[in-house]
């Protein structure tokens, strides 16, 4: 079985700074795979490389066995990869549900003619997209905000909204960049539950996260980065027992 996401000797240098250096790992379908490491370890850079926002200096990323070199983020989305951001990327000029419906973009086939004259084919698709989006907002726990302007929503609700948007694209793999950042203990517990539910649906989840309790509880495997390099890789038990990790990160 080939891995869903395969990273081979991936490096990214910004001038003289090696943000990510010679990183290799692979993620099997259905796993919850977390990337941890101290601030500045290169976690977000790694995610940006995987999702096509950055071009690697060397190395490659394979999605479903296909190299993603030179593919734009929107082409990766077509191939089943979607993500959220540490610095949330929400369209503040739209309502909450429109943001989620934006996630349905690839599944909604529309042409200019049916759009301009608002033909029944369009309204049918829109109605279905809206129902699906409302369902997803309920699923992530921000169902009460349907027609609220995104700009009027709280930080915690927007974080959930972003996850709903990513799920709306029906991805095979979803990358969540620090979903628990800025959330309180109760919200983090709800997030953990949500990530579990996403994984149960067979969606592969890749996670960058600082909250160790969250990460250790839900991950099938972890990758520990330090100064852009792989410090350790393995199951939560292996990582917990790894002396390098304890020294560098867990503050042993």
């Amino acid at each position, binding site marked *: 079985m080939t891995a869903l996401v395969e990273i081979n000797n991936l490096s990214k240098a910004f001038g003289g700074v090696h943000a990510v250096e010679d990183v290799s790992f692979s993620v099997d379908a259905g796993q919850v795979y977390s990337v941890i490491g101290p601030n500045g370890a290169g976690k977000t850079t790694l995610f940006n490389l995987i*999702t096509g*926002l950055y071009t690697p200096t060397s190395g490659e990323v394979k999605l479903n066995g296909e190299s993603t070199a030179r593919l*734009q*983020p*929107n082409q*990766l*989305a*077509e191939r089943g990869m*979607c*993500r959220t*951001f540490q610095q949330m*990327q*929400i*369209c*503040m*000029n*739209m*309502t909450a549900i*429109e943001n989620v*419906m*934006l*996630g*349905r*973009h*690839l599944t*909604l086939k*529309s042409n*200019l003619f049916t*759009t*301009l*004259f*608002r033909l029944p084919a*369009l309204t049918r*698709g*829109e109605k279905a*997209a*809206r129902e699906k989006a409302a369902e997803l907002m309920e699923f992530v726990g921000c169902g009460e905000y*349907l*027609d609220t302007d995104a700009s009027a929503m709280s930080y915690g609700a927007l974080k959930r909204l972003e996850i709903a*948007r*990513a799920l*709306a*694209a029906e991805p095979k793999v979803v990358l969540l960049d620090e979903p628990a950042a800025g959330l309180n203990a109760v919200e983090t517990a709800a997030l953990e539950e949500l990530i579990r539910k996403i994984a149960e649906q067979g969606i592969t989840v890749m996670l960058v996260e600082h909250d160790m309790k969250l990460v250790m509880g839900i991950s099938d495997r972890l990758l520990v980065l330090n100064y852009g390099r792989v410090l350790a890789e393995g199951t939560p038990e292996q990582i917990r027992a790894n002396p390098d990790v304890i020294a560098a990160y867990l503050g042993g």
Partner: protein
Amino acid sequence: MMASFSQFRLKGLVFLAIVIFALPLFITNPFHYGLATQIALIAGAVVGLNLLVGFAGQISLGHAGFFGMGAYFSALMTSNYGWSAIPALVVGAVGVAIIAWAVGRPILRLKGHYLSMATLAVGFIIAIILNNEREITGGPDGMPVPPFDVFGWELSPFGQYSLFGMEISGDLAWYLFAGVVLLVAVWLAQNLIDSPIGRALRSVHGSEVAASVVGVNTAKYKSLVFVISAVYASVMGALYGHFQGFITPSVASFDFSILLITMVVLGGMGSTIGVIIGAVVLEVLPQVLADFQEMEMVMFGLILMLTMIFMPKGLLPTLTGYLNKRRARSAGGDA
């Protein structure tokens, strides 16, 4: 809740229709009809520009160029080659679409000030060509445009027509025609905005990164909206030429481009009805201020400045925001 945005759209359209069709009850003067017709046609172009600026967050400081191209193409084809007005208008719009696509593809990679400069240059080039190709366009002296015609039936501001048994003047007929064109322009624009394509356009404004990671090809949508807004300008330009009966390169001038963008910003970016109000204000205000003579431009500038300082989101969004807040406050007081 489902119908909230649709209801809102319908309200705007109905409101606009009522205003357009009720206006003839209050004005009788041909000069006022002429002004109203001119406003309706320019407002149509502004509604198109708003798709680009207000919804997709891109800018065009050369949009009068497309307006002028539409106007001149129709003028040339109808007066020199004996084309009928509608084929000239359609072929002109297709030509403008192709040019806008070819120009838009490379320049829409630019952002912010750089995009402003590039679109500015496009507008200037078109204006220069219209000014210099004297043998074709008549140069700065301009050229006459035959009346608008449909299947041999001519629409001229100086004609007399009967509509549903009523005798109406050419001015009124043109006004009603322009009003219907504006309503259609608004209806199409609103349909576009409330659709998957519309969301993709707005997401380019809201967050280009977010748009791309859910699969929106942002470059494609930027070009698309640039083309659509250019076609709006071209069609309105063509009608404007027929209505005026005479055009000069000023229809493609830098000043006119700036006027169009000011209408969008003043009325309220991203509000279709708002930008029409912007067009009305900017066309009517100079007429009202004409009494101030030399002080006219000073007053005009002052009013614009104060509006932008106190209503930075534009006229309509600021007013509706204020009303919603008041309504929310009184609702909160009841609870």
